[in-house]
């Protein structure tokens, strides 16, 4: 069986695919990643993750339109599958639950804080 857990970087890429919708192809995702996180990344690194996510069944892809700046080459557009969406939700729930358990960040923080 394939490994189906969602890694941290994979999660970000998956979210970016969702955000970009019709425009979700490797180059664009890499650009968006750099814009949002202010960290530089190579297209190859993103592409490698996309292909892994596709193997895991979180993404599907098909060849899209071509444009002039690509020298007439088509791009591969990625879309999230239902299974991928489910994985994202599970990951979010786990993190929210963890955040709630951490007293310093939990909403009832003041009860422990000693401020009267």
């Amino acid at each position, binding site marked *: 069986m394939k490994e189906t857990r969602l890694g941290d970087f994979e999660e970000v890429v998956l979210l970016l695919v969702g955000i970009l919708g019709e425009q979700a192809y*490797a*180059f664009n995702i890499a*650009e968006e990643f750099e814009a949002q996180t202010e960290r530089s990344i190579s*297209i190859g690194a993103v592409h490698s993750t996309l292909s892994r996510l596709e193997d895991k069944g979180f993404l599907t892809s098909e060849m899209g339109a071509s444009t002039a*700046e690509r020298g007439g080459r088509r791009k591969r557009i990625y879309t999230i599958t239902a299974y991928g969406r489910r994985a994202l939700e599970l990951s979010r729930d786990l993190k929210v639950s963890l955040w709630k358990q951490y007293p310093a960040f939990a909403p009832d923080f003041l009860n422990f804080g000693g401020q009267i």
Partner: protein
Amino acid sequence: MKAKQTIPPRLARRFLHWFLREDLKEEVEGDLQEKFYIKLEGSSPTYAKLNYWYQVLQYLRPFAIRKSTYTPTHYAMYRSYFKIGWRNISSHKEYACINIGGLATGMMVALLIALWIYDELSFNKYHDNYERIVQVMYHATYEGERKTNNSQPPGMGTTLTSTYDRYFEYVVPATQTSEFVVATEDKKLTAAGRFMQADAPKMLGLRMQKGTQRALEDMRSVLISTNLAEKLFADANPIDQLITINANLEVKVSGVYEDLPANSAFYELEFIMPLDLFYSTNQWTGPDVWDNFFMRTYAQVRSGVTIREASEAVEDVMSAHIAPEDAAREKPEIFLHPMSQWHLHSQFENGAKVRSKAYMFVWFFGITGLFVLLLACINFMNLSTARSEKRAKEVGIRKSIGSVRHQLVSQFLSESLLIAIIACIVSVGMVWLTLPWFNELSGKDIQLQWLSPEIWGLLILFTVVTGLLAGSYPAFYLSSFQAVSVLKGSFRSGRLAALPRRMLVVFQFTISIALIIGTITVYQQIQFVKDRSLGYESEGLLTFPMNSPEYYRNYEQLRNELIRTNAVADVAKSSRPLTSALGWNEGFNWPGKAQDTSPAFNTIWVSSDYGNTVGWDIVEGRDFSHDFATDSAAIIVNETALKLMGLENPIGEVVSFDPSWAERKEYTIVGVTRDMVKESPYEATHPSVIFNDDNAASWLFVKIKPNFPAQEALPIIEEVFSELVPSAPFDYKFVDNEYNTKFRAEERIGKLASLFALLAIFISSLGLFGLASYVAEQRTKEIGIRKVLGASVSQLWQLLSKEFMVLVMSACIIAAPLAYFLLQGWLDNYEYRTNLSWWTFAAAGTGALLLTLLTVSFQTIKAALLNPANSLKSE
């Protein structure tokens, strides 16, 4: 006008095409091109192109690379490659032996050197706080020259502790390491120890076997090394045992620490005593003294503080505590010297760090190792290409039945890898066998750590790099043959094919000859310095540290008894050892001295018999003598000091001496002595002033009568010592032996260099041997025909050897200026040095030629003696 359109770098695109999976090509190229044009808008074309390259390289990921080479059929192919390789090796044993032997020797040298360099670079890493330990040092100006010093007054440590504790976790002032007599009830021996502030064990990260790192806080305690504990107490528990130091100090063992490794700066330290004990027993000094520079100060910088910050903070500490006029003149500037630099970067000149000799040796050996490995690889290449004609048929057949080029390349690379692997295993065995001997030669204690990943990584890297490097040329050369021409029989490797081979042989011999010249020169330099006139007679001269009160009490009696034995010519004492220039003082004044200078002189105090005992050479005036009561105010200067003082008629001149720690006094020069070499024999001698003081002490000298065999004299002398100085071990040293230790570093380098040179020439000859055997074999038929037509053996021998001789001669011609240039640079490091002599070069060249002749002749004569009836039979 529109500028020429910029396009993505062609080479990068071709590279991408080469490795990228077919089905990804379209989208990836599209993405990269889009990125490229975006970059082009925001920045320069060069940058965009670089970024394109970066993006391409970033696609070197498993998912994107063509999978074709990973299929199971290829796995089977590799197995068959190795199998064929193995058959090739075992069917040509002589050739394989030469290859494997040469490679293994080269790898052994490279491995040994790698271990040596690793040891050099990991110096002091044993100490846990390595990153944060510093030694407090300072630059100061004397006589217009910036000098770097490491001795401080005790006040330095005290001030740093009290005022600068924001920067330092520990400040550890310490006395210098020196030898003490350590005695228990039934044993006494000499051991190296020092007094250190109580935080020393914590700072040094001593691993305590018994007791704690706080054990020095009790003033009457001592920490001893495991080794010393074993020597003193054998199996008994050392804790709380009493030991006596130099017969007058009683301390209690409160801890035992693991022996420090040979690559620690504190390696020699066998025991540590509390600094408080030192202050309480030495009334002449104390923790707040600022005018007596005899201590070392170490410190550990707090985490969160950088060494540079701390260094800048304490920069002026010394100026604030010494006399203002001294501070103004010397401008002392404190700096913290990090432990990571102690070993390789501790040479300063004029207040700035310079490349140290130790560091140069690391480079020198590193390059030597690489070259020797390269020589071994060259052998391999040469032999494989030389044999190419033999294998050309194989290549032709393989190609004609459908082998593609990369399969042939893989075949040849697998073969060379196989040989490299075998050679690697052999070389590890050789390293394992020779390591103890190598350690002795290099004065190190290197262990092969079988389990350390670094060693394994290094070995694998070595093997793969060697295998690929050695196999690359034959692989690409052999696989380039055209099947048709090979099989038709018209294939002949032409004159050009032998050219790279010849160049490689020349290269090999250039390196080997240069190494030989280098080795001879190192030895010549050592010999030259060894033959330097010492200015005294070291033969039969014994020296003893006066490390027991009995020496002082019984000196006169000791001297008389020794002379009465008839084995001893004379006995004297002095404040300083003979083989070091300890003890420097300023504050001299003489007629005609320039007022604004205050040069420092090496100063020693000696008893009246000193001159007679050490046999110095008085060139003017007279020696000290008991006959002159006024000699307590007499001095003798050496020639260098006389030159510095610039006195025309020195005898009778009055010199006043006014150091900061004593009253001003006037002395009369009674004699001038020839310079005595005390410190480094490679440097010019220091100016010295010698005072006469019959109460001088610290070092005792005993001169054995010239005709008396030392072996017989020693027991006689020992008997006198054991009677009059029973508390000290009979711990004599021969001055000439002591002096010879000054050559140890250079001698080691010399021996290592000659070892490597020898192995280099061995590898080169091995290659030549293989090549000669090949050439002889190749020309068997030609030789047969020549013989039939009447050529003599010696003519044939000339014919075959000539080519090699020409190659080695060209190597000589290239090596000579190369070696000259490098060695002149090396010799320039020494003030007292020999000159490069022409015969060194001649000897190395002749040696190489003779060796070549010897190597080649064996093969050529064998070929020339063959019966032509046999060699021509098949034609």
